């Protein structure tokens, strides 16, 4: 890894000065005590997934417990969230996709809360792990594919047969369409995990430069404020990315759902 070799170089140059471990934050370890990570071990990842569910419950269940016609602040955020995703499902996938709205809402709420909670200092971000996002993406992919065949039968294959293209081109296009269809879960999952991982790693790299002032006053006066500024800027960007990636994941799910419900171009 580039960052790691950078860390080693820096460590070697500055004796035991700056310490670069940008990837350590992604290590999964038991939440209580030490030991190996088994399948059912309650890990830091599990903890933040549970926190995600609790935070989502706090917003969407406790926040709406007033059931007031004139909403409180928290209730209006919950309503905004509901309306945002419901409108997205309706606009992108169509009215007949509304039965799947709770499923899409679950994905969105899980991802956005995991992303935002992961931005808390010291937190673990479950969505920065490809294992997590791959399951999310595969769940969408399998659901959509199975549903496409159940709803349309063999007609679902019409998705790959571009009837608006000239006849000789259609087999070639069909091949491309099939490949792109199977690449969907890969790009769907790596986009989210990659964005979350990259931002967090960059913040850590900048953070490793911050103690420069303790090593050399002259260089530190320049480097330390710059690195703190950079951390702040990247953090602001990450806040944006945390929302945008949840949004992108959700809207792509809606697009795939639309393909399954209406496979004809």
């Amino acid at each position, binding site marked *: *890894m580039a960052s*790691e070799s950078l*860390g*080693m170089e820096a*460590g*070697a140059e500055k004796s*035991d000065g700056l*310490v670069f*471990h940008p*990837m*350590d934050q*992604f*290590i*999964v370890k038991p939440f209580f005590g030490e030991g190996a*990570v*088994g*399948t*059912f*071990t*309650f*890990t830091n*990842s*599990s903890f933040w*997934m*549970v926190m*995600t*569910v609790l935070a*989502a*419950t706090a917003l*969407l*269940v406790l926040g*709406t417990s007033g*059931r*007031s*016609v004139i*909403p409180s602040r928290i*209730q209006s955020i*919950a*309503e905004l969230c*509901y*309306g945002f995703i419901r409108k997205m499902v309706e606009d992108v996938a169509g009215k007949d996709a509304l039965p799947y*709205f*709770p*499923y899409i*809402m*679950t994905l969105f*709420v*899980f991802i956005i809360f995991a992303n935002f909670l992961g931005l808390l200092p010291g937190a673990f971000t*479950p969505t*920065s*792990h*490809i*294992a*997590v996002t791959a*399951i*999310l993406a595969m769940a969408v992919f399998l659901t959509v594919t199975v549903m496409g065949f159940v709803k349309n039968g063999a007609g679902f294959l019409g998705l790959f047969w571009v009837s608006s293209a000239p006849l000789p081109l259609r087999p070639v296009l069909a091949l491309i369409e099939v490949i792109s269809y199977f690449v969907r879960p890969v790009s769907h999952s790596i986009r989210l*995990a990659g964005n979350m*991982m990259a931002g967090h790693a960059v913040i850590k790299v900048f953070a490793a430069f911050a103690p420069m002032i303790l090593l050399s006053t002259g260089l530190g006066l320049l480097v330390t404020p710059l690195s703190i500024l950079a951390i702040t800027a990247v953090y602001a960007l990450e806040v944006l990315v945390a929302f945008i990636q949840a949004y992108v994941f959700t809207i792509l799910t809606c697009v795939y759902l639309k393909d399954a419900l209406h496979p004809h171009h």
Partner: protein
Amino acid sequence: MATEATQTGHVSPVSLEEAGVCVDSHGGAIGMPQLCGEWMGNQIFWLLLTLVVLYFVLSRVALPRIEAILAERQGTITNDLAAAEDLKVKAEEAEQAYQKALADARAEAQAIVAEAKAEIQADLDAATAKADAQIAAKAAEGEKKIAEIRETALDNVKAVAKDTAKEIVAAMGGKADARTVTAAINARMKG
């Protein structure tokens, strides 16, 4: 770190990573922790568990509740709009009644004003006529007096002229006959 690793290091991190070890002897990450197969099962298990819980929380509690809240709000808004429509119609009716009352009152007021004006005009006309008559009478009387005064003034002028003429004639050494002088004066005064 690097120096320590070489001191204690029995194997290089790369070979550790190849051997499927995800963490070095100091607890640091080797390579990308995301690719560590050892942790994937755990994450998948907890992800499925939390997702299922979240799905049931949302689909059984949160979403129906929010939907009910939104529907209730929509209902309230519709009812309020209908009530507002009713009130608006009532307000329009009230305004029409008010406008009608205002127009009636205005017409009545105009009638009263016209009547009063006519009455005043009649009184004024009568008073004017009376005053005109009085003025005419006074003017006639005044004219008569002026004529009288003019008459007497003419006679006085004649008498003074006669006396003066007689005295002048006498002073010139002439002998004035009263009748001739009077005739001459009268002739002069006519001319």
